[in-house]
């Protein structure tokens, strides 16, 4: 075997790589596979939440807001439990961010509510004095792209086996099932049902009217996403 390798430089190089990488492979890969498994309580995004996530990415929220709580007391006091890798199991891509111009949003759903987000996105400085965050007025007019969100749901369900329509254990012992609609029409309908719940807690009459008409403004999808961050 070795004599054969000696005469075939390419395969020799491959063998060298395997030998050198061996320790890394047996140490890193199993740990990685275990740590990236979904933490109990993590569930895939619904259609509306995913549409909101697209709004979040489209407006580069992740350029100023991280989604990664580090294990330091100063951070866990402010944001809640430090992040675990399994919590990002259904994030494609993850939105850790690299710079905090604004606060971390990993668990913003625990301590902010629909009406607060509505006030804040309309005029951040009105709620947080001295805030340098710009207002996102157009989100109250533009419509969220539910179809793309549904397409992503179907894709991750097919390709990555993201567990839609499956019973998932929650931290309190209950089971939760995130449904994946059978057709894009059904997905639009279920997203609208979610949107109605959010809009009921909102004050903006235009948004309420739009949802009543069957449209989903971006702000509704975004709030659904932010509320899901827990």
């Amino acid at each position, binding site marked *: 075997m070795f004599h054969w390798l000696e005469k075939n430089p390419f395969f020799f190089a491959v063998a060298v790589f395997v030998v050198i990488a061996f320790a890394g492979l047996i140490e890193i890969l199993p740990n990685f596979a275990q740590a990236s498994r979904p933490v109990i309580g993590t569930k895939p995004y619904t259609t509306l939440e995913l549409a909101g996530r697209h709004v979040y990415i489209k407006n580069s929220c992740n350029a100023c807001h991280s989604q990664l709580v580090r294990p330091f*007391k100063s951070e866990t006091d402010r944001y809640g439990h430090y992040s675990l890798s399994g919590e990002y199991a259904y994030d494609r891509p993850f939105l850790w961010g690299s710079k905090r111009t604004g606060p971390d949003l990993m668990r913003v759903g625990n*301590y*902010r509510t629909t009406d*607060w987000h509505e006030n804040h996105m309309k005029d951040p400085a009105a709620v947080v004095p001295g805030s340098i965050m710009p207002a996102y007025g157009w989100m109250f007019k533009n419509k969220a792209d539910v179809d793309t969100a549904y397409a992503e749901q179907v894709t991750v369900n097919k390709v990555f086996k993201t567990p839609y329509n499956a019973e998932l254990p929650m931290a309190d012992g209950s089971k939760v099932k995130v449904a994946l609609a059978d057709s894009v029409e059904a997905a639009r309908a279920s997203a609208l049902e979610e949107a109605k719940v959010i809009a009921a807690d909102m004050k903006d009459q235009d948004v309420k009217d739009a949802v009543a008409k069957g449209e989903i403004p971006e702000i509704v999808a975004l709030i659904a996403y932010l509320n899901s961050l827990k």
Partner: protein
Amino acid sequence: MNKTVLAAIVVVIAMLGFTYVAVGSAGGMGGEGDWVNKLAVLGAVVLVIVTAFVVTKYVRQMQSDTAGGQLADENWDGIGEYKNELPFGWAVIFLGSIVWAMWYFLAGYPVNAYSQIGEYNDEVKAHDTKFEAQFAKMDDATLNAMGESVFIVQCAPCHGLQADGMDGKAANLHERIAEKSVKHIVMNGANNFKTDYAGGMPPMLLQDPAQVDAVAKYVASGFKADDAAGKAAYAAGTCNTCHGENGEGMPSVAPKINGWEAGMVATVLKDGKKGAIGAMPAFTNLTAVQTKALGAYVSSLSKK
């Protein structure tokens, strides 16, 4: 003079020359500069001289030495080996390395001794111990100050730094309850504080809009004795049977509605709240001491 020694002297002079060009008089070679620079230059000079001396010694040894000593029995194609003792220092380092490797493998490896989460847990534990010891007994002023600082971090984003609810975006904490909220609760009922008041309050105990308005004004303005219409409406709606004649509340039946007190604030923090203004999340991340402090601060606001 030997050629090797001559070469060594030339190299030393050249190196010292280079050093002088590089650092100059400012570097300390001319007696100027601070002592750190002088020490560095002195070190460089010593290094150059020692190197030259050692190299010269061994080069000369190689030139003049002849092999000696007892040959080992083994012989490989005419190449033999002298029976030399292991150098003592080398042997000590070799054996020491073996012992050290065992220690490092079994106990010393960082993964066994340190983890980031372990450090975090230690940090939290140390802080909690210190916090509990420091604030085991607090006077009212300290309690209030702590409550205010917790308020600024946790509550001010919605209730505002002045606790005025920022133009109706959240509850104004300088009053117990707003007229609007009383109306909303009378019309829709309430079941906000599931842990402490499991029963909840049924909707539509008062049907007549005039009476609803009267009771809203009566409760929101603080149970004024001369408000006969409000008082009558309050009684008509049987509010007093649960909330008490003056809204002082009843344990595990109905919350106090004539003002804030620490216990009421703790109840709101425990269950969160949803009403006419919007929703408030539960704040379960606060410690018991922080909750108490926040209760003291918030109830002090409405008493002023």
